[in-house]
Protein backbone atom coordinates (compact mmCIF):
# COMPACT_ATOMS: atom_id res chain seq x y z
CA UNK A 1 0.00 0.00 0.00
CA UNK A 2 1.31 3.47 -0.96
CA UNK A 3 -0.20 6.90 -0.59
CA UNK A 4 -0.50 8.88 -3.85
CA UNK A 5 -0.81 12.66 -3.60
CA UNK A 6 -1.84 14.83 -6.57
CA UNK A 7 -1.17 18.54 -6.56
CA UNK A 8 -2.20 21.62 -8.54
CA UNK A 9 -3.15 20.88 -12.17
CA UNK A 10 -2.88 17.12 -11.63
CA UNK A 11 -5.30 17.18 -8.70
CA UNK A 12 -7.78 19.09 -10.87
CA UNK A 13 -7.28 16.66 -13.77
CA UNK A 14 -7.59 13.51 -11.68
CA UNK A 15 -10.44 14.92 -9.59
CA UNK A 16 -8.85 13.78 -6.35
CA UNK A 17 -6.17 15.06 -3.98
CA UNK A 18 -4.94 11.69 -2.72
CA UNK A 19 -5.58 7.99 -2.76
CA UNK A 20 -4.15 4.86 -1.18
CA UNK A 21 -3.39 2.03 -3.60
CA UNK A 22 -1.94 -1.47 -3.55
CA UNK A 23 0.73 -1.61 -6.21
CA UNK A 24 1.47 -4.79 -8.18
CA UNK A 25 4.76 -6.40 -7.21
CA UNK A 26 6.46 -5.33 -10.43
CA UNK A 27 5.87 -1.61 -9.76
CA UNK A 28 9.07 -0.92 -7.87
CA UNK A 29 10.17 2.50 -9.01
CA UNK A 30 8.91 5.86 -10.25
CA UNK A 31 8.95 4.99 -13.95
CA UNK A 32 7.01 1.78 -13.34
CA UNK A 33 4.47 3.64 -11.20
CA UNK A 34 3.84 6.30 -13.86
CA UNK A 35 3.42 3.61 -16.55
CA UNK A 36 1.05 1.66 -14.32
CA UNK A 37 -1.04 4.78 -13.60
CA UNK A 38 -1.11 5.74 -17.31
CA UNK A 39 -2.69 2.35 -18.09
CA UNK A 40 -5.75 3.35 -16.03
CA UNK A 41 -7.10 5.22 -19.07
CA UNK A 42 -8.13 8.88 -19.23
CA UNK A 43 -7.34 11.32 -17.74
CA UNK A 44 -4.29 9.37 -16.51
CA UNK A 45 -3.09 8.37 -19.95
CA UNK A 46 -3.12 11.94 -21.22
CA UNK A 47 -1.67 13.62 -18.14
CA UNK A 48 1.13 11.08 -17.67
CA UNK A 49 1.97 10.63 -21.37
CA UNK A 50 5.68 10.80 -22.26
CA UNK A 51 6.63 14.42 -22.83
CA UNK A 52 4.18 15.81 -20.27
CA UNK A 53 6.03 17.65 -17.53
CA UNK A 54 5.26 15.65 -14.38
CA UNK A 55 7.43 15.83 -11.29
CA UNK A 56 7.47 13.13 -8.63
CA UNK A 57 8.43 13.29 -4.97
CA UNK A 58 8.85 10.22 -2.79
CA UNK A 59 8.46 10.91 0.92
CA UNK A 60 8.92 14.65 0.31
CA UNK A 61 12.13 14.27 -1.68
CA UNK A 62 12.26 14.97 -5.39
CA UNK A 63 12.56 11.62 -7.16
CA UNK A 64 14.05 10.49 -10.47
CA UNK A 65 12.83 7.81 -12.87
CA UNK A 66 14.67 5.07 -11.01
CA UNK A 67 13.86 6.10 -7.46
CA UNK A 68 12.55 3.00 -5.68
CA UNK A 69 9.04 2.84 -4.30
CA UNK A 70 8.20 0.78 -1.24
CA UNK A 71 5.08 0.01 0.73
CA UNK A 72 4.26 2.87 3.08
CA UNK A 73 5.74 5.56 0.84
CA UNK A 74 3.98 8.85 0.13
CA UNK A 75 4.39 9.58 -3.56
CA UNK A 76 3.37 13.00 -4.89
CA UNK A 77 2.78 13.84 -8.56
CA UNK A 78 2.77 17.48 -9.58
CA UNK A 79 3.55 19.88 -12.45
CA UNK A 80 6.73 22.01 -12.51
CA UNK A 81 6.65 24.48 -9.65
CA UNK A 82 5.64 28.12 -10.14
CA UNK A 83 5.99 29.81 -6.75
CA UNK A 84 7.95 32.87 -5.71
Amino acid sequence: MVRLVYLARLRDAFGTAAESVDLPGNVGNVTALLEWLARRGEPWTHELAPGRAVRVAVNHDIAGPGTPIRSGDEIALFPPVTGG
Partner: protein
Amino acid sequence: MSVRVQQEDFDVGREIAQLRASTRGVGAVASFVGVVRDLNDAAQIRTLTLEHYPGMTEKALERIVVEARQRWDVYDILVIHRVGVLKPSDQIVLVVVTSAHRGEAFAACEFVMDYLKTRAPFWKKEMTPDGERWVEARASDDEAAARW
Protein backbone atom coordinates in the same frame (compact mmCIF):
# COMPACT_ATOMS: atom_id res chain seq x y z
CA MET B 1 17.57 30.54 9.87
CA SER B 2 13.87 30.64 9.51
CA VAL B 3 11.40 29.39 6.91
CA ARG B 4 7.69 30.13 7.10
CA VAL B 5 4.78 29.19 4.85
CA GLN B 6 1.69 31.12 5.84
CA GLN B 7 -1.57 32.63 4.66
CA GLU B 8 -1.06 35.90 6.55
CA ASP B 9 0.70 38.89 5.10
CA PHE B 10 4.11 39.92 6.47
CA ASP B 11 5.63 43.24 7.52
CA VAL B 12 8.89 43.67 5.58
CA GLY B 13 10.32 46.33 7.86
CA ARG B 14 9.62 44.31 11.00
CA GLU B 15 11.01 41.08 9.55
CA ILE B 16 14.22 42.83 8.47
CA ALA B 17 14.59 44.45 11.89
CA GLN B 18 14.10 41.13 13.68
CA LEU B 19 16.59 39.28 11.49
CA ARG B 20 19.14 42.05 11.97
CA ALA B 21 18.65 41.94 15.73
CA SER B 22 19.40 38.21 15.84
CA THR B 23 23.13 38.63 15.09
CA ARG B 24 25.95 41.06 15.83
CA GLY B 25 28.29 42.24 13.12
CA VAL B 26 25.68 42.70 10.39
CA GLY B 27 26.92 45.17 7.78
CA ALA B 28 24.67 44.26 4.86
CA VAL B 29 21.02 43.31 4.51
CA ALA B 30 19.77 42.22 1.09
CA SER B 31 16.10 41.52 0.68
CA PHE B 32 13.59 40.64 -1.98
CA VAL B 33 9.82 40.92 -2.05
CA GLY B 34 7.78 39.20 -4.74
CA VAL B 35 4.47 40.87 -5.50
CA VAL B 36 1.32 39.79 -7.36
CA ARG B 37 1.26 41.62 -10.70
CA ASP B 38 -1.97 42.95 -12.14
CA LEU B 39 -1.11 41.61 -15.60
CA ASN B 40 0.48 38.32 -16.63
CA ASP B 41 0.92 37.17 -20.24
CA ALA B 42 -1.39 40.01 -21.28
CA ALA B 43 -4.28 38.83 -19.08
CA GLN B 44 -5.71 40.85 -16.24
CA ILE B 45 -5.30 39.09 -12.90
CA ARG B 46 -8.24 39.20 -10.48
CA THR B 47 -6.84 36.78 -7.94
CA LEU B 48 -3.83 34.51 -7.64
CA THR B 49 -4.18 31.32 -5.61
CA LEU B 50 -1.00 29.82 -4.24
CA GLU B 51 -0.97 26.14 -3.39
CA HIS B 52 1.80 24.21 -1.70
CA TYR B 53 2.60 20.68 -0.55
CA PRO B 54 2.60 20.85 3.25
CA GLY B 55 5.63 19.13 4.73
CA MET B 56 7.63 18.97 1.53
CA THR B 57 7.50 22.70 0.87
CA GLU B 58 8.99 23.66 4.22
CA LYS B 59 11.65 20.97 3.84
CA ALA B 60 12.55 22.18 0.34
CA LEU B 61 12.87 25.78 1.52
CA GLU B 62 15.06 24.71 4.44
CA ARG B 63 17.35 22.83 2.08
CA ILE B 64 17.71 25.86 -0.17
CA VAL B 65 18.60 27.99 2.84
CA VAL B 66 21.13 25.42 4.07
CA GLU B 67 22.75 25.32 0.64
CA ALA B 68 22.92 29.13 0.49
CA ARG B 69 24.59 29.19 3.90
CA GLN B 70 27.15 26.65 2.74
CA ARG B 71 27.97 28.66 -0.36
CA TRP B 72 28.17 32.16 1.08
CA ASP B 73 29.44 33.66 4.29
CA VAL B 74 26.16 35.00 5.63
CA TYR B 75 24.78 35.42 9.14
CA ASP B 76 21.15 34.60 8.69
CA ILE B 77 18.47 33.94 6.07
CA LEU B 78 14.72 34.36 6.36
CA VAL B 79 12.21 33.03 3.85
CA ILE B 80 8.48 33.70 4.11
CA HIS B 81 6.16 32.45 1.38
CA ARG B 82 2.42 33.01 1.41
CA VAL B 83 -0.24 30.55 0.28
CA GLY B 84 -3.96 30.95 -0.35
CA VAL B 85 -5.85 33.55 -2.33
CA LEU B 86 -3.99 36.75 -3.12
CA LYS B 87 -4.83 39.78 -5.22
CA PRO B 88 -2.74 42.15 -7.34
CA SER B 89 -0.13 44.11 -5.36
CA ASP B 90 -0.27 41.60 -2.47
CA GLN B 91 3.07 40.37 -1.22
CA ILE B 92 3.88 36.74 -2.11
CA VAL B 93 7.38 36.03 -0.89
CA LEU B 94 10.10 37.61 1.24
CA VAL B 95 13.76 36.65 1.36
CA VAL B 96 16.12 38.51 3.70
CA VAL B 97 19.84 37.80 4.04
CA THR B 98 22.18 39.39 6.59
CA SER B 99 25.95 39.28 6.28
CA ALA B 100 29.06 41.28 7.03
CA HIS B 101 29.53 42.40 3.41
CA ARG B 102 27.16 43.19 0.57
CA GLY B 103 28.43 40.79 -2.08
CA GLU B 104 27.52 37.70 -0.06
CA ALA B 105 24.15 39.12 0.94
CA PHE B 106 23.14 39.91 -2.64
CA ALA B 107 24.35 36.59 -4.03
CA ALA B 108 22.69 34.46 -1.35
CA CYS B 109 19.42 36.38 -1.65
CA GLU B 110 19.24 35.99 -5.43
CA PHE B 111 20.29 32.33 -5.19
CA VAL B 112 17.50 31.57 -2.72
CA MET B 113 14.93 33.23 -4.99
CA ASP B 114 16.18 31.43 -8.11
CA TYR B 115 16.19 28.05 -6.38
CA LEU B 116 12.85 28.69 -4.73
CA LYS B 117 11.33 29.43 -8.14
CA THR B 118 12.42 26.06 -9.53
CA ARG B 119 12.66 23.73 -6.51
CA ALA B 120 10.11 24.71 -3.88
CA PRO B 121 6.71 23.07 -4.37
CA PHE B 122 4.36 26.00 -4.88
CA TRP B 123 1.89 26.39 -7.72
CA LYS B 124 0.00 29.45 -8.89
CA LYS B 125 -3.49 29.52 -10.33
CA GLU B 126 -4.68 32.79 -11.87
CA MET B 127 -8.27 33.98 -12.02
CA THR B 128 -8.65 36.17 -15.13
CA PRO B 129 -11.73 37.58 -16.90
CA ASP B 130 -11.57 34.43 -19.10
CA GLY B 131 -11.56 32.03 -16.16
CA GLU B 132 -9.00 30.12 -14.12
CA ARG B 133 -5.67 28.88 -15.39
CA TRP B 134 -2.64 27.25 -13.82
CA VAL B 135 0.51 29.29 -14.36
CA GLU B 136 3.06 27.50 -16.54
CA ALA B 137 6.66 27.17 -15.41
CA ARG B 138 9.07 29.47 -17.26
CA ALA B 139 12.23 28.33 -19.00
CA SER B 140 13.85 31.58 -17.85
CA ASP B 141 13.49 30.42 -14.25
CA ASP B 142 15.33 27.19 -15.01
CA GLU B 143 18.07 29.21 -16.69
CA ALA B 144 18.31 31.55 -13.71
CA ALA B 145 18.68 28.63 -11.30
CA ALA B 146 21.22 26.88 -13.55
CA ARG B 147 23.62 29.85 -13.26
CA TRP B 148 24.50 28.92 -9.71
